[in-house]
Structures are given as C-alpha cells and as structure tokens.
C-alpha cells in the first residue's frame, strides 16, 4: 500500500509543479511565499513571547494557565477559519479510477495528503517554542507531555473535522452560514457574559491535561472524522459525485427572470452576468464572501486606529467595494470560457463593458445601503462610506477594466476556494496600491490644510467626475480593448 501512496503523492507533486498557472506566475509564488514566511515569523515570535504577553494581559494568571484555557477556544475558531480558508485535497480522480488502484487507497491518500498543509504546520511554529520556553521548564513532565499531546491532537482534530464539514457540506453554503452564525452567536454570548463559555472550555482543557486518558476522546474525534471522510470518499468516489460528470440542476437555479431587460443591450449582458455569478462556484463564493465583508470593520473595533478618518476610509473602501474588489478584479477572465463566442457574435464590446460597469455599480450601491448601520457606531461612517461609494464607482471599476485589458488570464469558473489565485497577475496586486493610496493621501493632505469635510468631499468629487464622464471613459477603455483583443483572446485559449 505504501509504495502506491508514494506514487500518487509524486504524481500530485508533479501536477503542481507542471501546472501552467504555477510556472507562469512567479510574482504570485513570491507573494505567497512572503505571505507564508510572514505568518511563520509571527507565530514563532508569538510562541517565544507568549509568556510575557499573556502575563501582561492577564497579570493575575500564570501564562501556562491562561494559554491552556484558550486551547479549546482556539480549536473552535480553528475549525471555522479552516472551513473558509483551507483548501482540502480532492484528487483529479478520473485518470485513477480505471487503473488498478483500490478506492480505499485513493481515499486514504486524499486524507493523508491534507496533513502537510500550511494550516497544520503553522500552529507548530507556535506550539513548539511555547512548549520549550513556557511549559516544560515550569510544569512536571506528565503535565507537560499531556499539554503537548492535547495541543497537537487539536491541530489534527481541527484539520479533519473541518475537512469533513467541507466535504459533507461543501456544496451547501447556506449550512456554512448557519454554522458560522452559531459560532459567532456563541462567541457573542461568551463576550457579553450570558454564558461563560470560555470558563467551561478552560475547565475541560485542564481536566484533560490532568487526566491524560481523556485525551483519547480527542484522538477519537480525529479518528471519527477521518473515518467519516473516508466513508464519504468511498461512497462518493464516482465521477458524477465529484462534479466531473453531468449532473442535473435544481429548478431554483433556472429562474426565468430577466432583471435588467429594460436596460437594452447592456441589460442583456447584465442578465447573462448575474447568471454567470450565480451558477459558477467561484463567483458564488465571492458573492457570499463579499456579504461577509460587511462584518469586516468589527474585527478592528477597539483598535486604536478604528476612529481615525484615514482608517475609516480604508474600511469604507472595502465595505462599499467588496464585490467590485473581489469579482471586478477578474473582469474579463470570467468570460474566458466563452470568449470566442463574444468575439464572433454580433455583441458590441461596448455593451459588455457597460453591462459590467452597471452591475458593479449596483453592487456598490447595495453594499453601501447594507453598511448604513455603521453610521450608528460612528456617524462619520456615513460620510466615508458615501465618499468611497463614489470613488469605487467612479474610479475603482475603471481601473480594474484597464487591468483586465493588460493582464487577463483564463480561469476555471467552477473551481471555488477563497484563496484561489488563479487568474491573478502582478498588475492585480499592484493596482490595489493606487486604489488605497489615492483616497487616503488625498484626504490626509487636504484635511490637514482645509479640514476634514473638504478632504472627504474631494474623494467623492473624483468619483463623481468618473461617474459623470463614464461614457467617455468606457469608450476609451473599449478602444484600448480593441487594440488588445487578439492578445487577450490568445491568453484565454491557453488553458
């Protein structure tokens, strides 16, 4: 069995190395590399300094006690975070099914391959230094080893439990939303003091460390979820259940409504695009994530920068532009699977850009309305949100259109994943800089001379100018597209 697993592993590794997307985007690999390194250093630093930090924050408690109490708490958060961020392996299974490899081996392989994930390695950079610096020197050997076992078992449990949820419910984002609200609800109840959840989890953690035999329960959880996924794979190893073979669709997705019919030709494109968004996995994920971004400023509540206007501007940029920033940045790549259709049919490319523009503008407005309640936390949000609504609609969308003309790559619209970077090039990262810097710098400069209101007004005015002259700007973008269309089309054919 082992040599076969090894073979599969080798082939998957080659698949990764040889995928055009990997070799083509060096910038991206470097970016991801730095990203990973950053997190490793942060965790390593935290692991080494945790004792000091925890004693600072909770001076009345011992660092070991405080942290151990947080372990189970972390575990629940971990499941939640992994569910949204971790990409769990699913083999490009088709070529293997007809070879003499048993389904069991394939299932075990998929399961084992989830272990060397960044999400499992990263916690070790915290756990191990913390163990050697804070736990081992201060605790008896039995307690120390129980602590280490618990910490590592929880990493595995987090991996397999969220893997199970991902595979079992991966197709049901509604369930994910329910799960999340339950978790958020529990956290809220804990914070607000209705249920001392943290205390319960703390006592459980201590009980386990003191009675190492109970650790078997966690081990049981690991094995149970492992077996659960194994069963899922074994029962659903057929192609149709992996989404590789035809599957019928529910009537619900087949609505017969044309929302934007009255807008003429661009409206037809808008209707096409709304179907595209709803019926493709990647765009659907982006839609949900954009809605989640509404909660994003809450992460920073209490941060010392929270009520600084420049920081509020950045939050408003993301609040009102969540969909534009996420969906809009792949502007034309969404159409890469049917690009030749667009080029050979009597569709005016003007209408395509117009349709996309209005659709994104509508998303900005909807998100603006949804984020109005932030004004009750701080009334200035109304101003920053309005300024950034105008800026996103009058500037950001156009910038992404220009990027699309120069840096469009094909994407698989049916592949989901929050950290899916397919279709991104250097330009997609660089363009974020002006989108953030222009409004913030404009505000900082103008407000220091002429006051805050003028700074806000200036950002809004730039956006407003873009909106007023949208026809002219779109025309220029379309002209530019026409001179680049062969290059874009050629890129889209390289799959």
């Amino acid at each position, binding site marked *: 069995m082992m040599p076969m697993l090894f073979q599969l592993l080798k082939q998957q590794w080659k698949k990764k190395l040889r995928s055009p997307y990997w070799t083509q985007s060096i910038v991206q690999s470097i970016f991801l590399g730095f990203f990973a390194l950053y997190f490793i250093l942060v965790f390593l630093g935290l692991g080494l300094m945790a004792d000091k930090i925890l004693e600072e924050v909770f001076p009345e408690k011992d660092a070991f006690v405080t942290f151990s109490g947080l372990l189970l708490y972390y575990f629940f958060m971990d499941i939640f975070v992994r569910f949204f961020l971790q990409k769990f392996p699913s083999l490009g299974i088709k070529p293997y099914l007809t070879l003499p490899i048993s389904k069991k081996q394939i299932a075990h392989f998929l399961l084992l391959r989830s272990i060397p994930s960044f999400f499992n390695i990263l916690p070790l950079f915290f756990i191990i230094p913390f163990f050697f610096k804070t736990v081992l020197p201060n605790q008896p050997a039995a307690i120390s080893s129980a602590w280490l076992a618990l910490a590592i078992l929880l990493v595995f449990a987090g991996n397999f439990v969220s893997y199970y949820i991902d595979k079992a419910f991966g197709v049901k984002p509604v369930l994910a939303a329910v799960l999340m609200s339950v978790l958020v609800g529990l956290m809220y109840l804990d914070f607000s003091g209705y249920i001392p959840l943290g205390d319960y989890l703390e006592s459980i953690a201590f009980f386990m460390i003191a009675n190492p035999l109970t650790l078997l329960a966690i081990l049981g959880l690991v094995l149970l979820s492992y077996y659960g996924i194994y069963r899922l794979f074994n029962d659903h190893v057929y192609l149709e259940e992996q989404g590789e073979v035809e599957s019928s669709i529910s*009537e619900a997705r087949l609505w017969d409504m044309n929302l934007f019919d009255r807008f003429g030709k661009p409206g037809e494109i808008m209707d096409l695009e709304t179907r*595209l968004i709803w019926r493709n996995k990647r765009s659907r994920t982006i839609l949900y994530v954009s809605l989640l971004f509404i909660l994003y400023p809450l992460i920073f509540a209490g941060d010392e920068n929270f009520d600084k206007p420049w920081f509020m501007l950045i939050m408003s940029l993301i609040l009102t532009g969540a969909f534009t920033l996420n969906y809009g940045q792949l502007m034309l790549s969404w159409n890469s699977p049917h690009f030749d259709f667009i080029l050979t049919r009597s569709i005016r490319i003007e209408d395509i850009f117009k349709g996309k523009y209005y659709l994104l503008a509508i998303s900005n407005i909807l998100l603006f309305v949804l984020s109005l309640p932030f004004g009750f936390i701080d009334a200035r949000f109304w101003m920053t949100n309005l300024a950034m609504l105008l800026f996103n609609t009058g500037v950001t969308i156009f910038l992404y259109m220009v990027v699309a003309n120069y840096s469009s790559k094909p994407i698989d619209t049916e592949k989901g994943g929050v950290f899916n970077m397919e279709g991104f090039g250097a330009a997609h990262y660089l363009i974020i800089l002006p989108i953030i810097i222009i409004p913030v710098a404009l505000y900082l400069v103008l407000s220091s001379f002429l006051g805050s209101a003028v700074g806000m007004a200036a950002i809004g005015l730039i956006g407003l100018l873009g909106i007023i002259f949208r026809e002219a700007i779109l025309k220029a973008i379309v002209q530019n597209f026409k001179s680049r269309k062969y290059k874009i*089309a050629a890129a889209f054919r390289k799959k």
Partner: protein
Amino acid sequence: MKEAIIELKDLKKGYSGQVVLDISSLQIFAGERFGLVGNNGAGKTTLFSLVLDLIRASKGEVLSKGINVANTEEWKKYTSSFLDESFLIDFQTAEEYFEFVGKLHGWNRTDVQNFLKQFEDFFNGEVLDKKKYLRDFSKGNQKKVGIIAALIGHPEVVLLDEPFANLDPTTQMRLKNLIVEISKERTLLISSHDLAHVTDVCNRIVVLESGQVVKDLETSAETLKELEAHFSATL
C-alpha cells in the same frame, strides 16, 4: 463572374518565425459548400480563426463581402460559426443559449422556439428540456447545440470545424442531410478529417498542407479516391 463572399488575399500567419498559414489567394463564392481537409497542423483552424478575426494576420487580409474582417464588425451580422466549446456559454441551458443567440439577431423567444421545432429529430430528445447546463452536456450534444445555434438568425455564411467528430452515426447522417438542406441559401465552410463525409456534402474541397493550398477540387465521383490517394501517398 461570380462574386466572392469571402476572399483571402496574400494571407500569412506565423508564430515566432514559423509560418503556419500562407495563402496567396483564395476565393469562396456565395452558395458554395466549401470543405477544408488536411492533417493535424496543416492550418485548418488557423484559417477559420483568421476568417473570424479571432487571431491577427501576420500579413495580408481576409475580406468578407469586400471588407477586411479586422476593420469592421459588419460581418458578424451575417456570419455564424461553431469551432469548439468556447463558442458556447457553458453555464446556460440549451434553451437559454439558443434564446440568447436569437436575441443577438433580434429574434424573440417564439421565433427561436418555432425555429428549433424543425430540429427535433436532429436533437433526438437529448438537448431540449434537459434542466442542465451546457457544461454538463456530452461532447456530442454540445456539438449539436453549437451547430444549430450557428444557424439561428439565418446567417449567410456558416463555419463549422469538425462538425462530424463526436457525433453518433445517426446524427452524422442527419447532419449531412441538414448541411445540404441549409446550404441552399447560404455559404458553408466545413473542416473535417472525415474524407467520405466531406466529399459527400461539399461541392468544393481544398486540401491544406503545411499552411498551403495543395489541391483545390470541384467535387466529382472521383474526388474521394483522389483524396484517399493523396493522403496515402505520404505513408
């Protein structure tokens, strides 16, 4: 003298120094059933892509009704094509796709439905009312959709790349009849590896080799033999 509906003039396409298509002159006349044959890499798809302005010619031009296809989009109103899946919109159902194509030609839903009725045999009950997206169709059924969609809007010129490939034998026969039927009022450009089929339906066959026209035949009883001899000669 007949008027050429499509004319290739001094047309060249090369990638990094390697010439993949080099045709000094080729005229396709209105009403012709034009068959293009050649081995892999002979330049068939390149030729079609140039006619459809999907790639930029390195030299020369393609004229459609006398106008360079790269300079105008007028030809899109009377030219339809199906080369591969990227001509389909894969997240639509077959009905939605037909309707969308119809809309582009100013047809309403009823127009499209009436039009589709005549192809019920051709679809063989595998295309309409299926409640699934085109990306979940088999290759053969995708091809059926693409071919019929290429007839919506009564185009004057229709380009089909390998129309017989992936189709079941019955559908291949139906397609042959269909091609003869529809070509009464339009010009048809077909590329194919199937020498028998292509000689059956086309009244003119052009053989490409390394990007050049090596044979240009009016179809007769001997054409198939001649083509078979030509392609066996290199064995």
